[in-house]
């Protein structure tokens, strides 16, 4: 079976072409050792089956971003498996100048390729006329097929041409050793651009007219007043939709797993096996799947904004502010989304091209106040803060809650600023980018892409999260209470031993062993702290949202602990514990354990530091 690889510029319609050809016959996998996905698919030309690979979009072969390196290494045949027999170069017909650069590089490397002259309909509408035969000659005889990938126009001819190319014997071409260095030199670039220019002179019969629609839309979208107002509106709406769309699905998932747990409780006799299945496995899997709605919906929104062409504009509008923190304008997407949940937030950091900036964004996003902190904050604020009005209309508890949101975000900014000052980035960052023309989004591509994201999360981060949840279950369950024990099981668990062992370290923060013990299961998910405290104090009632449960626990807390301790615990939760899902997804997105370990350490240090100060301020 022959292999066909799709290459092309970002936004050239490469994904649409891939989706059109492969339909539902596609699979997603990670590139070896790295975290960028590659997509596989199949196509048929008559009887013959072709295997298709979709490579990340690139402008040229001198790679600077992670995605670009993958495509470069693939074209340079550094990746040994599934080498391409033929390349399909997807070219944006409305932006030939940029696309031709890459096509000349493929020609120079002696690759067999077919050109898909995509979006030909728009180019025609804007009055462009080309000598396609001449273009083919210029590219060493590579067939040039005009296509409209979204409609499937020209796709069949393209595949036939690609299949014919596979029959031609491949002239093995050795890539010069210094090629990778050479193509970065100004002289090389200048010569290539001259070649492109000369080709354009020869093939363009009628020039393309300016995209006046885009410029008109931009006069509103980038307007000094309406621009920021629209941006603000879109960000707020994104945040709102993320909550309101995800909520019913999350409830459904939770209900489903509760039902499953009930069945398991009835079927399996009480004991360790039941506990393992119900509290370990079912709760663990449920804890992973509950993130899916957030991930899928956030990526739907992001892909939509990207497809329309808005994401670049948002980066343009926010660049100045974010640059002060050493971050690109686009970083606002992961930072904002992390207020719903850090998992999709961290995953969305991929829209940031610069590696250093992406890492910093991933490391600070979880400091945003996610929705899982709310039950903890609500409980503690309920205990600490009296129901008072400030300035006659603002409730004091609400103000404190707002203060915690603000404190989280300011801490994130502070960390970003320190990171910028401390670690000189290895590669300088640029804004320097093209704002693409506005386009009508392709809904199917958006939906499919975001569902794939969700599936990849389950597959790649799910295992880590699952294993960690089982470990935590083990810590809380074993070795189990002795006979005629008069206290709840957790008092005799390994978690309690750990809690007691570490108590001296946490005493300066005012935490006793009961709190440190309850902190252990809250690694699984922060909101578990509430039920864990309930377990430790053997509060009656299972439902943590039950009013009497919260009331009983609150009164115990306020009797047991001083204001200083409770305030310190509140501040502790701004930074730590970060849930295991955060670590799992961070490991996946940064490609190793280094970043999660650094992250875990710095958040613990900050949590300790600020809790210490708080405890002493309020004692």
């Amino acid at each position, binding site marked *: 079976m022959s292999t066909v690889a799709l290459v092309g510029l970002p936004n050239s319609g490469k994904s649409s072409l891939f989706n059109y050809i492969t339909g539902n016959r596609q699979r997603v996998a990670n590139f070896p050792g790295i975290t960028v996905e590659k997509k596989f698919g199949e196509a048929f030309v008559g009887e013959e089956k072709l295997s298709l690979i979709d490579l990340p979009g690139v402008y040229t072969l001198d790679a*600077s971003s992670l995605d670009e390196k993958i495509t470069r290494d693939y074209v340079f045949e550094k990746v040994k498996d599934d080498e391409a027999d033929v390349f399909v170069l997807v070219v944006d017909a409305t*932006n030939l100048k*940029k696309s031709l650069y890459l096509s000349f590089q493929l020609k120079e490397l002696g690759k067999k390729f077919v050109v898909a002259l995509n979006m030909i309909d728009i180019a025609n509408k804007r009055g462009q006329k080309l000598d396609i035969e001449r273009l083919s000659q210029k590219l060493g005889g590579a067939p040039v097929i005009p296509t409209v990938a979204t409609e499937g126009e020209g796709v069949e001819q393209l595949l036939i041409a690609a299949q014919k190319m596979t029959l031609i014997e491949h002239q093995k071409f050795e890539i010069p050793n210094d090629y990778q260095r050479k193509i970065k030199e100004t002289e090389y670039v200048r010569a290539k651009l001259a070649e492109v220019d000369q080709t354009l002179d020869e093939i363009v019969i009628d020039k393309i007219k300016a995209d006046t629609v885009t410029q008109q839309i931009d006069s509103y979208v*980038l*307007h000094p007043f309406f621009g920021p107002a629209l941006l603000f509106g879109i960000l707020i709406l994104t945040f709102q939709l993320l909550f309101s769309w995800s909520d019913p699905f999350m409830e459904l998932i939770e209900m489903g797993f509760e039902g499953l747990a009930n069945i398991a409780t009835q079927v399996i006799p009480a004991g360790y096996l039941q506990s393992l299945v119900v509290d370990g496995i079912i709760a663990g899997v449920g804890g992973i799947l509950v993130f899916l709605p957030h991930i899928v919906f956030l990526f739907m929104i992001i892909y939509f904004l990207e497809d329309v062409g808005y994401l670049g504009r948002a980066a343009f509008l926010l660049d100045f502010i974010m640059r002060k923190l050493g971050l690109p304008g686009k970083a606002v997407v992961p930072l904002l989304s992390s207020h719903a949940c850090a998992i999709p937030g961290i995953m969305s950091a991929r829209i940031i091209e610069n590696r250093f900036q992406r890492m910093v964004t991933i490391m600070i996003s979880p400091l945003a106040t996610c929705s899982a902190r709310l039950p903890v904050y609500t409980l503690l604020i309920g205990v600490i803060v009296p129901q008072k009005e400030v300035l006659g209309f603002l409730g004091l508890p609400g103000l404190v809650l707002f203060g915690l949101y603000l404190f989280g975000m300011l801490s994130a900014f502070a960390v970003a600023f320190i990171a910028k000052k401390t670690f000189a980035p290895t590669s300088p960052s640029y*804004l*320097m980018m093209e704002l693409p023309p506005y386009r009508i989004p392709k809904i199917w591509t958006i939906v499919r892409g975001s569902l794939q994201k969700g599936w990849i999360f389950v597959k790649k981060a799910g295992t880590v999260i699952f294993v960690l949840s089982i470990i935590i279950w083990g810590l809380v369950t074993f070795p189990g209470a002795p006979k005629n024990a008069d206290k709840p099981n957790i008092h005799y668990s390994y978690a309690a031993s750990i809690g007691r062992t570490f108590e001296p370290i946490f005493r300066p923060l005012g935490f006793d062993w009961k709190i440190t013990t309850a902190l252990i299961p809250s690694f699984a998910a922060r909101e578990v702290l509430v039920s864990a405290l309930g377990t430790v104090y053997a509060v009656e009632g299972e439902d943590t949202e039950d009013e009497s449960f919260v009331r009983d626990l609150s009164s115990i807390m306020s009797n047991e602990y001083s204001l200083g301790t409770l305030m310190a615990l509140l501040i502790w939760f701004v930074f730590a514990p970060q849930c295991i899902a955060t670590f799992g997804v961070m490991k996946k997105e940064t490609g190793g354990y280094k970043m999660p370990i650094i992250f875990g350490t710095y958040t613990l240090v900050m949590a300790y530091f600020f809790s210490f100060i708080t405890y002493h301020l309020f004692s």
Partner: protein
Amino acid sequence: MKLDSAQKKVRYIIKNILSVEDEITSRFYKLGIFPGIEIELLRKAPIFSDPLLFDVEGAQIALTKGEAQLVEVELKQELSCQQ
């Protein structure tokens, strides 16, 4: 003059890229910004007028002020005046 002091609705010709680093120069080149090309300021960002948005042969290119300072330009002589 440098591109960061360009005015709207005036067309300029790029003279030179004032960077010694190949990587930066080639980044400019790949966005279509190199000597001989016409460029026009379309708009400035609402906050502190930074970054800037330019028209480069029909493509909209965003540059920070710092980046624009690396581009040397001159006013385009209107052909109608010469003929």
